[in-house]
């Protein structure tokens, strides 16, 4: 069985809590909070004003540039205010607050569960629809999807790689989506293949989801040019570069995009959203969120409209368990620990809510590095985390750059594996930000010199 070729770790997958829990719809909130940044790139610009009435699917905010994404209303009601808002991690931003009234959708949106198989649109029209629907990568990075579908001149996509790996422990939303909406995903893949002009699509699924592999394989048998590829369990297989390596054995060079090796990668949830946008005229207004943890009363996979305060989703799962130490937005390897849950809405970025007990939340004390080299063995990018972390602490930015700090994908394998409990990423992350800033400055200076 295939997998990626450098590094990787084997965390306990802990998916048993929420696996196979049917996708349950979360009730609408009284007030929805819609942050204007739910993607990588420029913030979206609000196109509505206070007091406006909106329907579900109406444009609330327009993409603030090419690398940005539209935000469509996930609820119907009246705009209460547009203003300052702070997220669960304390970062300030702008948000639109909507007082929810009923659930009125734009008339062109098809809300029936009927499959719409035929797609007669031209590639350009497909991409326009995806862009208008505000679709971003739902695997975690939230990169605007239309940007990936428009490769720079001279580059040609050869293969579409569909990410059904879900390598983050605990999370099961993609797994359940494949089980319940496999047909839609297949149609979505055909649409994307058409948009990209590729003949071949590979769905990579890790071997801990045997039923999903079987189900998708059965569907793929009647779909031309779609292969299902079971992958050996290893984290971070869902990382874009790792998945390409695992599926087609090509490694994207340092600093380059997947298109460099002829690949475009999209997550199954993103592809489901593409199906809904192109075939059912339904913009991205909701997603499946896994609520899980060892002590959660009703762990499960919940279909949540964006803007719904997460407190309401948590209540549906039985509330915050007693003795909770951390609430993680996302999975345990790359998710972010929230300071609080108030005023925090579900949004495009949020794939899961994971509750860790106080005991599980303890970061053991750091010991001396024993130079065992386990971080080097674990790093899926072939970097030297022990060295980068030290260099970053000592502010040796040039050395950081020479040792490819910018290739770090933040996967956490080094910290996960370190027997001395060293917090390597606590040094590498700020180092990466600093070196990134230096590189941008240098590029700007070079441009100015021309």
């Amino acid at each position, binding site marked *: 069985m295939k997998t990626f070729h450098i590094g990787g770790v084997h965390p306990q997958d802990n998916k048993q809590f929420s696996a196979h829990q049917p996708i349950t719809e979360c009730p609408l909130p009284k007030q929805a909070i819609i942050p204007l940044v739910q993607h990588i790139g420029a913030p979206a610009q609000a196109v509505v004003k206070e007091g406006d009435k909106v329907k579900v699917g109406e444009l609330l905010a327009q993409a603030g540039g090419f690398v940005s994404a539209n935000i469509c209303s996930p609820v119907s009601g009246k705009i209460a205010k547009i203003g300052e808002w702070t997220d669960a991690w304390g970062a300030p931003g702008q948000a639109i607050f909507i007082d929810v009234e009923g659930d009125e959708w734009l008339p062109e949106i098809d809300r029936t569960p009927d499959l719409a198989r035929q797609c007669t649109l031209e590639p350009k029209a497909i991409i326009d629809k995806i862009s208008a629907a505000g679709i971003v990568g739902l695997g975690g990075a939230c990169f605007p999807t239309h940007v990936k579908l428009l490769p720079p001149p001279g580059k040609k996509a050869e293969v579409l790689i569909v990410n059904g790996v879900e390598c983050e422990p605990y999370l099961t939303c993609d797994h359940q989506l494949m089980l319940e909406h496999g047909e839609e995903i297949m149609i979505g893949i055909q649409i994307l293949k058409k948009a990209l002009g590729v003949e071949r699509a590979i769905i990579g699924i890790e071997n801990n989801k045997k039923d999903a592999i079987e189900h998708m394989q059965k569907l793929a048998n009647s779909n031309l040019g779609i292969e299902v590829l079971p992958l050996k369990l290893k984290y971070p297989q869902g990382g874009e570069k790792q998945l390409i390596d695992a599926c087609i054995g090509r490694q994207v060079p*340092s600093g380059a995009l997947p298109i460099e090796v002829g690949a475009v990668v999209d997550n199954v949830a993103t592809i489901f959203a593409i199906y809904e946008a192109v075939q059912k005229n339904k913009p991205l207004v909701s997603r499946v969120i896994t609520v899980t943890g060892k002590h959660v009363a009703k762990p499960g996979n919940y279909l949540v409209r964006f803007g719904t305060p997460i407190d309401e989703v948590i209540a549906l799962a039985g509330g915050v368990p007693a003795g909770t130490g951390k609430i993680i937005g996302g999975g345990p390897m790359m998710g972010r620990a929230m*300071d609080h849950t108030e005023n925090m809405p579900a949004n495009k970025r949020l794939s899961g809510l994971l509750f860790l007990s106080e005991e599980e*939340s303890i970061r053991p004390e750091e010991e001396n590095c024993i130079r065992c080299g386990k971080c080097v063995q674990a790093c899926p990018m072939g970097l030297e985390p022990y060295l980068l972390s030290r260099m970053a602490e000592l502010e040796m930015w040039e050395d950081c750059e020479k040792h490819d700090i910018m290739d770090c994908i933040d996967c956490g394998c080094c910290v996960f594996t370190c027997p001395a*409990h060293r917090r390597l990423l606590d040094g590498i992350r700020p180092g990466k930000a600093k070196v990134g800033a230096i590189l941008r400055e240098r590029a700007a200076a070079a441009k100015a010199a021309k």
Partner: protein
Amino acid sequence: MKQFIVAPAPHAHSGDSVRRNMLLVILALMPAYVVSVIEFGWGALITAAISVCACVLTEWLISRYLLKEQKQTIGDLSAVLTGLLLAFNLPSSLDWWIVLIGAVVAIGVGKMTFGGLGQNPFNPALVGRVFLLISFPAQMTTWPLAKGFETSYLDAETGATPLYFLKHIAKTGDVSLVDQLPALKDAFLGVMGGSLGEVCALALILGGIFLICTRVITWHIPVSIIATVALFAWIGTPEGMEAHQYVAYELLTGGLMLGAFFMATDYVTSPMSAWGKIIFGIGIGFIMMVIRTWGAYPEGMSFAILIMNACVPLLNKIRPQHFGEPKKA
């Protein structure tokens, strides 16, 4: 507003710890130690006990009273392991006070002067051993015969190790000495003279395989050392001896297996990347065979490892296979 614990990702850990790794190495040494006790009796028990206790005590005293550390590190078991490895490298009949000096030098000079665990450039147990070898050459090369508990600790019968004969054969071409070598089966099972813990190749190999399987060490260092030694011996087989016989003796006698699986693989003093480890291993094998063949000492494992320890910062310039770059070599 209820607040929760905030910390950067990842929020999961493998559960591995320094202590666990040290403990596994100590466990992996146990089969070889059991053989030593059977063969060398009281000497094996007493020497190891003195060495381990002295190492732990030295670390604690220095850390507590000289460095005035708030937190003591003896709980990580690295001092226990150093003590055990030092004992493994000593003749079992060594006077107790020499063992004590060795332990104090190993931890005091070899480890704590540099700042404790993780900071030392040289393998502390070998620093202690080589210090003793140079300071007490007679005592350090007096090898008790494997007679178990029949003999008392200090009045053990002594004799030369197989390496002494091997060297003599290589130097003089006197093939008649081959009869003086233990049978290959005995060499493999450890029925021969030598340092306390080095004699039983079988037990050491089992321990080493255990460490590789539990991912405490990787195969790179032991395999490259053993392969280099085997190749060197095969090419340099003295006239009158069968190549396979000579290779087997070089591999099974002396400190080779102990060094390859347990000493050279010391985390702190070995390289980080796979290729660094392989070159490190080749260097050790080569230097050791040069010393065994032409040097003044019959055995060169300690020196070879220490010399290559000194090269580790250089070997760490060799970077691991980087994602997205064409394959190296």
